[in-house]
């Protein structure tokens, strides 16, 4: 049993919502335990400044930010080294999923706002950002799921929350595309033996698969009223 009463391989309760922002091209909101994260996607849109664009694919920009009120102690609103790093790793975790060749010379902006943080926000951010990209109608190879695993009190556990992360022996966030079997992010803080690492990786990947099901459910909830195959056929005919 863990500090918050979970089993070692149990995830925190997750709530996902798609399409929460009117202005954004696509958006998503995630609650994972005490984490609260909002993601907005803008794009594909014209690249400004102009030199940013790539001739053969869309540029993806990602900004991860923590609200000053998101943690126990006030977080300085200036972008910290940690936020800049997380922005980069999230971008790199999502890039392999996006078929950016469809929109050359454009930019896709991903804004991730962590409103309340309780450990594992980069994973939760990736989960929500991937949903928001799908909501924006951007073509993707697959939804990216993410989950962490680590070692607390000598035991391998999945989906660490803040206290476990701070006082545990290791934390390893993993982002994964289950169907394609591609790991797009893997980092580790602390130390694990080879056996522990393999166990933790299995746990994290298993967590990703569970989260992927939730992601699909969330998307289907959003577009529920739209399962009419007959109508789809009419529309694709009109498109020709």
């Amino acid at each position: 049993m863990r500090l918050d009463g979970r089993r070692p391989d149990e995830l925190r309760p997750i709530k996902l919502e798609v399409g929460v922002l009117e202005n954004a091209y696509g958006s998503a909101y995630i609650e994972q335990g005490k984490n609260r994260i909002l993601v907005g996607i803008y794009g594909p849109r014209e690249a400004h400044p102009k030199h940013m664009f790539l001739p053969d694919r869309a540029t993806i920009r990602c900004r991860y930010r923590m609200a000053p009120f998101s943690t126990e102690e006030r977080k300085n609103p200036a972008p910290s080294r940690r936020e800049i790093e997380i922005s980069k790793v999230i971008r790199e975790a999502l890039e392999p999923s996006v078929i950016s060749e469809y929109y050359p010379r454009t930019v896709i902006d991903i804004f991730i706002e962590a409103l309340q943080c309780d450990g594992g926000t980069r994973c939760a951010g990736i989960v929500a950002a991937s949903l928001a990209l799908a909501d924006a109608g951007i073509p993707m190879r697959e939804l990216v799921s993410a989950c962490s695993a680590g070692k607390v009190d000598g035991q391998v556990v999945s989906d660490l929350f803040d206290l476990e992360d701070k006082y545990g022996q290791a934390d390893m966030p993993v982002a994964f595309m289950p169907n394609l079997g591609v790991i797009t992010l893997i980092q580790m803080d602390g130390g694990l033996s080879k056996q522990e690492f393999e166990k933790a990786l299995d746990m994290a990947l298993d967590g990703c698969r569970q989260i992927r099901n939730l992601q699909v459910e969330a998307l289907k909830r959003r577009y529920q009223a739209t399962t009419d195959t007959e109508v789809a056929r009419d529309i694709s005919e009109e498109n020709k």
Partner: protein
Amino acid sequence: MVTPGELLAQGEYYSDLNTFKDGNNVYSTMVGIFDYRGNRLSVVPLKHCYIPFVGDLVIGRIVDISMSGWSVDINSPYPALLPATETMARQRTPDREHERVFDVGDLVKAKVLAFDRTRDPLLTARDRGLGKVTHGRIIRISPSKIPRLIGKGGSMINMLKKESSCSLTVGQNGVVLVTCKSPEYEQVVVDVIKMIENEAHTHGLTDRVFEMIKSRLGGGYSAEREAS
């Protein structure tokens, strides 16, 4: 309904629009509705941005003036260029001269002349009915809902035009121009178009639209015309 990364089929299939193939597996790349024709698999997206296509009619807004033409916002990731040479009518008619000259903020009906994603789209306003938008109301809807607004073989849009006696120009970029005899009629048409957008993927929409116009316009203009 399918989501990105969902396996559509395994085996000897071709991957068409919004799908991709990995070995023998075909996956979806968008949130959309799965469709197949023979062994061609495709996904009709429920939401997407407007990508210009040669021949599309679009309604755009002039955002900049340059020496050789205008740049136009056509609601797509790529800004369009309307060269000055493409605004001339076939025959110059002095009384319509002012319709050839655009200012920033003007709306323009145009056709996509060329586009291949490596260069920004080129527009032309030379055809009949193209050029500056001088009156009417503009509504923006999602470009993915445009085929529904037009309907099978134009069924929806023709019905809408006939029942409301308004003139409608549907830009493929999700911009619709409505011109009616009175603002009341315009409001009804605007409401109807919004309803079509909200209920785009449901059955029997044409009938419900028909009912709505009938009830809002009390028999419709066509009935009025027949009576007179």
